[in-house]
Structure formats: C-alpha cells, structure tokens
C-alpha cells in the first residue's frame, strides 16, 4: 500500500511537473529543444517509474507507531521553530533549547539533556564563532 501511495504521489507530481513545464515562458531565442523539452522527458520518466510501483509494489515497510510518528513530527516542528527564532534569540539560546529537546527525546534524562544542551551550544559557539571566526546568528545579547 505504501508503494502505491508513493506511486500516486509520483504520478501526480509528474503530471504537475509536465503542466508546469508547459507554462514556462517562451524565450525570445530558443534552441532545438527549448527550456521545456528536457523537463518533459523527466516528467515521463517520473510518471512511468511511479506507475511501475503502483502496479508492482514492494513489501510493506515497517512504519512507526502513531506516537513515534508524533515524535518525529514534533522534532520537525522544533527544527522549523529553531530556524524561525535563531535570528531573534541568537545562536546560543536557541541551540541550548533545541539540543536539550533532542537529547531528551532521544532518551536522556532531563538533567543530562539540559547539560548536553548547554555544553553543545557553548562548545560549538566557542569552536566556530570564537576560534574559527564564523558568524553564527547573533541575538539581542550578541551571542
């Protein structure tokens, strides 16, 4: 079933891609194939291969349980949030929060998680910003 869903998504993507290729603005001077020719070929390959696993799916993979899925979902949200707040809070604070969260969710005790958060964040800051001179995001306090 999973492969059929993937094939369905792939087919939709192929159709969408082919359609998007047709609306590429026609340039003033073009070559024999033009900007839409090659994408069309790719859309066909995408479509045909997707069709193959709709018709002949592999054995079902082992999907995680709902709460494991939620775990990954939360991690993704936290990572998006990290990207959002990085320029606001600065590297050190934002990184402490996300590292501690990930450490905790990967199975550490809360105290270990916080310690790893602080250690990783400060350690990476010292290494990359102070020693190697990269510019990591600066927050209101300058770090």
């Amino acid at each position, binding site marked *: 079933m*999973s*492969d059929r869903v*993937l094939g369905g998504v*792939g087919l939709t*993507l192929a159709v969408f*891609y082919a359609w*998007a*290729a047709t609306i*590429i*603005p026609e*340039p003033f001077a073009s*070559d*024999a*194939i033009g*900007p839409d*020719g*090659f*994408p069309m070929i*790719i*859309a066909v*390959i*995408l479509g*045909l*291969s*997707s069709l*193959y*696993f709709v018709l002949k799916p*592999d054995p079902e*993979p082992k999907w995680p349980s709902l709460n494991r899925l939620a*775990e*990954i979902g939360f*991690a*993704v949200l936290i*990572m*998006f949030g*990290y*990207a*959002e707040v*990085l*320029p606001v809070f600065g590297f050190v604070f934002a990184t402490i929060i*996300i*590292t501690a969260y*990930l*450490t905790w*969710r*990967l*199975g*550490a*005790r809360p105290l*270990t*998680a916080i310690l*790893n958060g602080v250690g*990783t*964040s400060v350690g*990476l800051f010292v290494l*990359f910003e102070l020693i*190697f001179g990269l*510019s*990591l*995001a600066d927050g209101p306090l300058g770090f």
Partner: protein
Amino acid sequence: MDTFVSLYDGFSIALTWQNLLLAFLGCFLGTMMGALPGLGPANGVAILIPLAFTFGLGAVPALILLTSVYYGAMYGGRISSILLNIPGDEPAMMTCLDGYPMAKAGRAGEALALSGIASFVGAFFATWGLVFLAPQLVKIALLFGPAEYFVLFTLAFATLGGIAAANQAKSAFAAALGIGIAMIGVDTQTGVQRFTFGEVHLYDGIDFLIAIVGLFALSEVFIFLEHRSSRGEKKEEPKMQIGRLTPSWKLLRYCTPAMIRSTVVGFLAGVLPGAGASLGSFLAYSVEKQVSDPRSETFGKGDPRGVAAPEAGNNAASGGALVPMLALGVPGSGTTAVLLAVLLTLNIQPGPLLFQNNPDVVWGLIAALFIANFMLLALNIPMVGIFTRVLLVPSHILMPIVAMIAFIGIYSITGSTFELKMMVFFGVLGWVLRKLDVPLVPIILGILLGNEMEVNLRRAMTISNGEWSALFGSWLAIILWTIAIVGFVLPIVLGRRVKKKMKQAEEEGALTD
C-alpha cells in the same frame, strides 16, 4: 614519465603544514564517523562539507580535508563490525562475518590491526591504480562530444543502483526527482525562470548542499528518533579484551595473498560504474572464500583471511570509485557523488579537462590520498583504542550534535533561515524515502548533474539540428548506451540473487554467534 612528474608536483602541494594538518584532522574525524554505527562515509562527508567551506579553505585544502574524511570513514567502518557485530556502514558488513568471531575468541586486537593493515593495502594500491588508470581514461574522455556526455550521464544514472539494486523503478524515480529539482531556477541556455512560481528564494535554484545535508544527516537524526532506545538503557559496551595490537609476521604472511586478490577485485568493482564499495567487499569476500576455503570450514568462524579480504576489497573499491569521478565527472558510488558536490561547489568541473586545467587539484588530491593512507595506518594501529571508546558515546548525546553541526554549516553558508527550513524538509523527505526503500544517492546525483546533462543534450541537438539520431551517432555513444542498458537491466535479472546471497552470508554470520 609525465605521471611521475605530475605526482611529484602533487606531493609538493600536499606536503605543506596546513594540508598535512587538514589531512590528519580529516583522517581522525573520518575514522570516528566511520566507527559510529549509522554514520557512514557519505554522511560523514555530507556533514563536514559546509564546514570545509565556512573555514574559507581553498579548493585543494578543502578537498584534502574531505577526501581524508572519506578514506578515514572507510577505515573506521570495520571497528564496530569487529567489536560489536554492527557494521559502521554498509561496506563493512562483510567484515562482521569473521571479525566478530575473532573478537569473541579474544583476538579483537589482532582482528583490528589486521583489518587496519588490509585497509591500508587495499587503499594504497587502489590509489596507485588511480594514478595510472585515470589519465588513460581521460584520453578516451577527450574524444567525447555533447552527445557522448549526455549518454555518459544517462549511464551513470542507469548503473547507479549497482548490481544489488533493490528496485530499478525506484532508482529511476529518485533520479528523475533529483533532475527535476535541478531544473528549478534560471535556465542557463535561455535565461528564463523555470518552476519557481514567482518565489524569490527559488530563483537561484535549490543548493545541493542543503539537499545533501538534509537527506543524509538530518534523516539519520529522524531515524534515531524513530528507534530511540528506552530511557536509561546502557549501550552495548565493547567489553571484550582487545588483546595484542600487533599481528605476527606469520599471520600477515598468511593473509597477504588474500589482501592482494581482494585489492584487485575491489579496485575493479570500484571503477565499474555503479558497483561501489559494498559490492567490492562482498565480491572480495566471496572470491577469497572460493579460493581458500571452498567448503567453508573456517570462513565465518573467525578466519583472519575473512577479515583481511573484505577490508582490502572495500578500501580498494573506494579508491577505484575515484577514477570515473575524477576522469569523467561521473561518480561510481554514493560517497563519491557527495565528493562531486564538493568539487562543483568549489567551481571545479571534474572530467577530462580537470586534468588539463587544474592539474594542481588532481595531483595534489592524489598525493594527499597517499599521505592520508599512511596517516590512517599510523592512527589505526596504535590508536585504535581511542576510536573504540567513541563507540561508548551514547547516541542521544551524539545525534543532537550532528544535527547542530548540520544547521551551523548551512546557516553559515547561506545566512538564511529559509534554507534551514528547506534542509529540514529534505530531512523529512529523506526519512520517508528511506522507509520506502527509495535510494537517496540518485536524487543527489540528479541535483548535481541534471543541468549538465540537459546542457549537453541541448548542445547535441543544436549541432544536429534537432535530429535525435545524433545521440547514437558514434561508436563511443553506442558503447555507452550498451553499458547503460546492460547496467540497468542486469540488476533486474540478477539483482535479487545477489541481494539474497549477501543477505544469506550476513545471516550465516549471525548464526555463528
């Protein structure tokens, strides 16, 4: 003779203090990455690429650092195979078969040292193979026109899954996905925008570093989250006695023929498009078993030749995989695809012209590989204890650090939070695709080579006034088409059998526990 002069020049580039230091750092980090189960050479290089750039390294030093990581990771993969029976990466799988039984018999130190030496033999002679074979291949490649290049790229995609490919339809799907992503942005031929839908962030296309780091490094974090061990659970410790770390001359002599045979087999497997290190180690082990132990009385039960063969084989294959990558611009394995990304980011186009236009890059790199090999030998025999201790760091400490290094790398290159979100998106995509057995390497290769492939197709068509038959217009093109078709079809016919055999070998190994 020219070759030796070039190589000498290469050494004069590689033997500066900065480059030596970078090679050492790369070897050390690479071995560590390789030793950790789950983080293979492709991940290792992927995570460190952005950092190499942010240090502002030039082309040669950056390449030296990252290829040292590559070689280091290939060396390191064997450590957890031998001590824990968990391969650090796929090519190290075969090393478990005899390495772990040896360790259980109290000969862990010997197995580690022997495999280190076998890795050295494989990689060292493969690097010589690279020195002699790559310039020859370049001579052929100089005859290539746009049509032949287009077919060559097609060949790269067709054979990428290798003989053990799980599902060729999925490889094709992945390649098309990657090439499709490469099309986003400005069309280099006409300058029109494609697939950007007016989104300013997409005007320059999607940077392949973001895709690579997301697909490889972040998806690994999600996999760990999915399988996280329950709280407080201790990691399996390599409790066993390491024992003596210097193998006896007698043992070395006993294993020398195995190392030589496996180096040849592995190197050939590496050079052939799409085979790669996993097949290199598998073939080396199988050949060795056929030759020296056909009735399987000692193999799989801790025969030292069964440790030496796959290690020489997989390291020779990684050297071999650099031949098509440097000479043709077509990577032979996943990790070389990642290394190709490094070259492209440094504005270096691999392929025959690289040997003419940037001989310093090619020969500096090759010299660095030789140096890295000696460093790795020196690191891996006496200091193997340090690397075994890496296995004790729990993944809940390690994986968040991996994730943060990925974020730092991308942020310091792009300075944009949009790109960070894009990387997370690729991480999720990588996780889903890995669950569905869709290979990630063709996606990367598609993003890397898609534009070049299209440019060559359009050039060929322009030259021939739109005649498609131009793609079959020369002997070279026809040969390449034939290899491509055979390479694509063969796994469909043979793939299941090879895959089954590899699995069987693995299970037999597990049974001897």
